[in-house]
């Protein structure tokens, strides 16, 4: 059911995308037209649009520049991208018993899905990190499996060192045509080496710079979800919360499914704002920029994944009837199937008008939905923060307000169902705020917040709902 809904949504989006793109083209110079064929590139479909085609003349206006990127399922279905995966396994004392048994089984399952073209390595960490299977092409899967079986759990948790060692293994075979990924499985708090969320975020950022993503799997209720989401988020990996170890196999499946379905990598987005336009921030990302030029990137897009990047900006005051170029967007990416770099250009413009009706009519409610979702998500993060600080009443009050705000947005929404889903999600958060199992709820909330921020593939929700 969920799958069908998603495809319907995607269909609606792509129709919209075409219309806005045409609208955009009609408003801008002909220079866009030579780029047109790249819209039909095999891997990705782009949609660059401004939240408002027309704004009121005479005042400074806030608007959003939105870039939708949709990964199209690879047409070369038989040929999935080669992978370079470092499995990083927490084998500290807390992992002993059933957790370890399940983790090893899940790992074995994952490894058995790799082919001799793939590179894999295995790092385990407790007090220190050790590479127990150095990066190599999968020529000897049986020996790899034996290595997995020999792991015993004990010691403390040197998470930073584990991820670092994993990334060093990846780097041995670093190749932009491979999907380079560290898969971290941990059930505990890092207690050896750098262990603050912002430190792991920085590690994630640094690895992302080398096109290495870290997917983090938090097992049980003992891990630090902030740390795990920060690490995954800043390296553009996935994050999973697995309460019971018997779901690990599903999660590994899902993760490998994502990795195998990568259609494009190293998507570099360059937005150049025209003079007078003031870029403010990218929603949900912490890129710092000071000039007119904004650079950011996604590490990869999976097939059937839809990601968007929304830039908040201020438009200068204009006179009635005037047209203004707002920004030029250049996107370069590696097509996983074609194994070559492709690029895409587009521009957006705005018209100034005195008519309120026209402004209202030209609003792109799809983009406003994105903003709504993002803002509600930010509020829910604030709610968690208040709850962490012990201000339960404040948290409840803020979350109630958050929900009522969302409800008000329902009527103007392009996809009310999406808003409705988020309302339900926020209500769950409100309910769980004063529940005894807040620890568990917090991990679930963090995962959902993460998925909104990073547009993690929908398919992962299935395992979550089980």
């Amino acid at each position, binding site marked *: 059911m969920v799958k069908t809904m998603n495809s319907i949504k995607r269909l609606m989006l792509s129709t919209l995308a075409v219309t806005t793109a045409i609208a955009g083209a009609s408003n801008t110079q002909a220079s866009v037209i030579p780029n047109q064929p790249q819209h039909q590139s095999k891997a990705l479909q782009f949609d660059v649009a401004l939240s408002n085609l027309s704004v009121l003349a005479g005042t400074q206006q806030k608007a959003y520049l939105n870039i939708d990127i949709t990964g199209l399922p690879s047409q070369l279905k038989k040929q999935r991208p080669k992978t370079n995966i470092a499995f990083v396994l927490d084998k500290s004392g807390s992992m002993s018993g059933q957790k370890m048994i399940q983790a090893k089984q899940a790992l074995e399952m994952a490894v058995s899905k790799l082919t001799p073209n793939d590179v894999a390595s295995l790092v385990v960490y407790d*007090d220190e990190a050790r590479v127990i299977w150095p990066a190599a092409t999968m020529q000897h899967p049986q020996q790899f499996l034996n290595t997995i079986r020999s792991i015993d759990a004990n010691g403390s948790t040197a998470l*930073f060192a584990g991820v670092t*060692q994993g990334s060093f293994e990846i780097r041995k075979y670093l190749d932009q045509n491979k999907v380079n990924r560290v898969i971290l499985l941990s059930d505990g708090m890092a207690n050896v080496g750098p262990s603050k969320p*912002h430190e792991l975020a920085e590690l994630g*950022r640094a690895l992302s710079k080398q096109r290495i993503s870290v997917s983090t799997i938090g097992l049980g209720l003992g891990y630090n979800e902030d740390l795990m989401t920060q690490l995954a988020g800043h390296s553009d990996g996935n994050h999973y919360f697995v309460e019971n170890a018997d779901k690990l196999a599903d999660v590994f499946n899902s993760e490998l499914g994502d990795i195998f379905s990568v259609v494009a990598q190293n998507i570099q987005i360059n937005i150049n704002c025209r003079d007078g336009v003031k870029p403010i921030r990218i929603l949900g990302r912490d890129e710092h920029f*000071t000039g007119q030029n904004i650079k950011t990137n996604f590490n990869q897009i999976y097939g059937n994944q839809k990601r968007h990047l929304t830039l908040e900006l201020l438009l200068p005051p204009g006179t009635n009837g005037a047209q203004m170029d707002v920004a030029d967007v250049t996107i370069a990416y590696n097509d996983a199937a074609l194994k070559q770099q492709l690029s895409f250009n587009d521009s957006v413009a705005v018209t100034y008008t005195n008519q309120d009706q026209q402004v209202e009519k030209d609003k792109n409610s799809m983009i406003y939905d994105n903003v709504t979702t993002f803002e509600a998500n930010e509020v829910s993060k604030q709610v968690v923060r208040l709850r962490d600080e012990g201000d339960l009443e404040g948290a409840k009050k803020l979350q109630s307000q958050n929900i009522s705000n969302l409800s008000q947005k329902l009527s103007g929404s392009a996809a009310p169902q999406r808003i409705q889903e988020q309302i339900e999600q926020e209500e769950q958060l409100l309910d769980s705020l004063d529940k005894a199992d807040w620890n568990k709820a917090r991990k679930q909330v963090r995962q959902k917040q993460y998925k909104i921020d990073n547009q993690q593939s929908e398919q992962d929700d299935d395992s979550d709902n089980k």
Partner: protein
Amino acid sequence: MNNKSNLLLLLLFGLTIGLVGWLGLKLASQQDRQIKASQIDRSEQALLLMQNNINEYIIQQQEHFNQLLNKDLNALQARLNSDPMIHDILLLNLVDQIVFPSQVNPLQQQNSYQWLNNIAIHDESNTNNQPKSGWFIWYQQQTEKYIFWTMNDSQKLFIELNNAMFMGDFIHWLSQQPNIAKPGYLVINDNQGRTFYQWGKELTAKADINIQKHLSSPFTGWSLRYYSNTQSLSTLSKGLFQLIIIGLLILVSIITYILFSIKRREHQEAQQRLSFVNQVSHELKTPLTNIRLHGDLLARTLNSTEIPAKSMQSLNIIQQESERLTRLINNVLNFNSVDNSTLSIHCSPIPFSQLLEESIEPFKPKFEQLDIAVIVNNAINSDVNIDHDIFKQIMANLLSNIEKYAAESRQITLSTKQNADLITVVVQDQGEGIQRKFHEKIFRPFYRIKSDLTHASGSGLGLGLARELARLHGGDLQLIPCETGACFELTLMEDS
């Protein structure tokens, strides 16, 4: 006597064990100290080595960055884009104008290079030493920024490192260092005291060895700590030590056993001899009783007038001697019995000179035959109240010994004196004498200095019995030092 020597043996054994144990302990503790000292020494060296290696690592990084000096701006940009370790690069000319990045607006300068103000001061304060490069650590929002600066005649280059990559690279480098911590625990603590990297099993308890070294810039405030518990002895030398102790114990045990069994055999032989003498004595008693009985009968039935006086005298001698023999045998039997108190003393007054004469009388013919002169210096002219038989028996033993063992003597001297109740008789011969080491042994039962068969026969009981008798009589029998031959001193307490 036997108990005493056994005790001695046991004492010896105990002492040996104690000595060996004590020596062993002393040796062990000394070795422990040595081992600990050498362990501390080794740990110090290992720690120093690690410290040096870390310094080398930093220098290596610095040299890496130093190469960026005098590079053109495109090369700098390329390096900035490609090197994940470098977060930012700032290049100033000598008048502190920003050369790279080429386009910096004032806001960006304020945001990104806040530390520049501080580093300028830092730089100036160091102009005396003219450093060419250094590290600067800038704290911003609880995060450290590691900034390496290097300069030459025309440029100042600032490289802000990516913290995570720098730390990651450092950890990776550390992981490739050999584990020098064995058997202890080596840990690197960062400037907040958190464990950054560790080797070996964590030691939380107070370790015997606890050494600390500080790391230098840029790891200011970081420390390298080594913990270890000294092993009392290395396994090998511990085993060796135990082996030696056990070996010694076995050796001492064997020696003790051998000595003990020799002793026991001697004791058994003595017992056998004693029981033999006992049996013989018992056997002798019956015919002796008959002799005495029939002697008495003969004396009663015979009329003294009918037989010559000479025969009568012989009969009397037979009777007296058989009575004496009975007493002697009784004494031998009693000597062997557990309780000496069954020996009884029968004192009766007698002129001492007469008693002395009677004692010597039986030996005179033999001495004459051997051409030995007997010189008596008797200073006791009064009667003495002592047991005649005991006195005679002791004297007989001493004189028969001379006859047996000192036959080469030309004369023997008997000197007597009385001091209050104590009567002293010294018998001196001119034989070869008795070595000092045998002075006490000759009194032991069955002890014979020369036990070869060719030598004069004797039971080995005599002197022991004589001494027992003398002691029973409140005196003693001792071998006293003298110029020639052997000199026995007999003392007896007169019964008052």
